[in-house]
């Protein structure tokens, strides 16, 4: 696949559409174990990103970097810096231009997820977006065929695996044991991000 602002905008606009469709779900998950704003936060940010015109960008990298800055400056909360850092690092690790394959994507995905770890200081099992993102990258790397599809399935499974978890980071951690029983809102939105990639980048 050719790496272009248009292709990448296709991904993030699909993500924005999925977020809009799932706003109520994301808010309701956050209402149960957080502060009921994850839906509104993500809609605000992804709507702004979807309004970026890919034609304004010279290459995929600069488009993704602008998308990241847009998230950082519109989302707020915990998810703004985290999704922003994810895309910022991912964009920086993308090749300049030209065709991209599984081997080309892998370091970019890894850099993005490592950025989330560095920014938020959470790890696997803390009941955060990382519980969708880390398995997604691992599945992407391990896949012999259709790596995006494998990543999307792993992200969804990772999201579901957050249900019984007790949160250690973010607002849900204040609940202690009462945080179990509900999927993490950020893991749920992250699974949407990878699923949108599987539909648009595969």
């Amino acid at each position, binding site marked *: 696949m050719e790496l272009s602002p248009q292709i990448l905008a296709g991904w993030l606009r699909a993500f924005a559409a999925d977020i809009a469709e799932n706003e109520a779900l994301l808010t309701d998950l956050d209402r149960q174990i957080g*502060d*009921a704003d994850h839906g509104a936060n993500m809609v605000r940010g992804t709507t702004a990103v979807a309004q970026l015109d890919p034609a304004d960008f010279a290459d995929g990298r600069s488009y993704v970097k602008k998308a990241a800055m847009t998230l950082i400056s519109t989302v707020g909360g915990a998810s703004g810096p985290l999704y922003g850092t994810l895309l910022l690092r991912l964009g920086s690790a993308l090749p300049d231009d030209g065709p991209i394959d599984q081997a080309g994507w892998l370091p970019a995905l890894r850099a993005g997820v490592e950025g989330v770890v560095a920014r938020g200081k959470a790890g696997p099992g803390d009941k955060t977006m990382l519980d969708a993102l880390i398995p997604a990258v691992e599945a992407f790397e391990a896949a012999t065929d259709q790596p995006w599809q494998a990543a999307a399935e792993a992200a969804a499974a990772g999201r579901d695996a957050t249900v019984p978890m007790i949160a250690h980071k*973010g607002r849900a951690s*204040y609940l202690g044991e009462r945080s179990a029983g509900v999927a993490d809102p950020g893991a749920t939105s992250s699974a949407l991000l990878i699923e949108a990639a599987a539909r648009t980048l595969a």
Partner: protein
Amino acid sequence: MKKLINDPGTVVADALRGMAAAHPGTLKIDHANRLVISIDAPRPGKVAVISGGGSGHEPLHSGFVGPGMLDVAVAGEVFTSPTPDQVLAALQAADSGAGALLIVKNYTGDVMNFEMAGELAAAEGIDVASVIVADDVAVTDSLYTAGRRGVGGTVVVEKVAGAAAQAGCTLAEVTALAQRTADAARSMGLALTSCTVPAAGRPTFDLADDEIELGIGIHGEPGRSREQIAPVRELAARLVTPILEDLDFTDAPVIVLCNGMGGTPLIELYGLYAEVSDLLAAQGVQIARNLVGNYVTSLEMAGASVTLVKADDEMLEYWDAPVSTTGLQW
């Protein structure tokens, strides 16, 4: 959901329009960046004191902007930390070259967004320090968690730091004092009813007619436990006891904040304060100063929190210093 609003998406912008209309002589409003700026900021040579966070906790922080307290308050969406560029704009608006202190409540989002803003401002040559307020004893403190939430103690940190900056202290001095004050603060809250986030449209949690949530957060985050309602005498003890267990308050003068969560009337807050002051006296705690009212709220939530700050002479001096904001004046 019934609220006096136009639309869930315009709540913060509408409130800032109202502040602009109500206080043209004392506040400047940057609507684009959602900043409430003291009319006299930036003041040459004065350290800027800036705070902010999600909206819905008013008068915190916008009500504490003015001489003797904050130079700028940064307003996020309801219960959502503001973004780094908002905070950067605040730093640019208030810094006079003497540097700026960011007072940040300890929530993952706030910490990250203010941190990013601080990095951006430092790159522009602004001298930035920050103090994290984490005073909520309802949350177990641990290296492996997000740590304690910042709640009522924030008011005391903002007052003391603002007065020190007003008095001409350096950034290092203001920061050290603010940190000491934050470290000396402990709080505990309870809710009788939930708040409703405008964008969510329904209460964050449901409580039965005879239930309270003990250890509630100011964003409606659930607390330590759900319990039966009891006479305020007993509820006061449920708030005060974990605070006193966490820190010894018997060996210094104490500043006490008896704070409403937004939907509890003043007549009840004074009733609570009567019990709190009796309990503290019985435990040998000497109340040097107090504040009873709505200071750090959670939208229309009914409930209250108690904050104790173990003070020293410097803190008391700056607590007593004149302040002229819409939410605190003396």
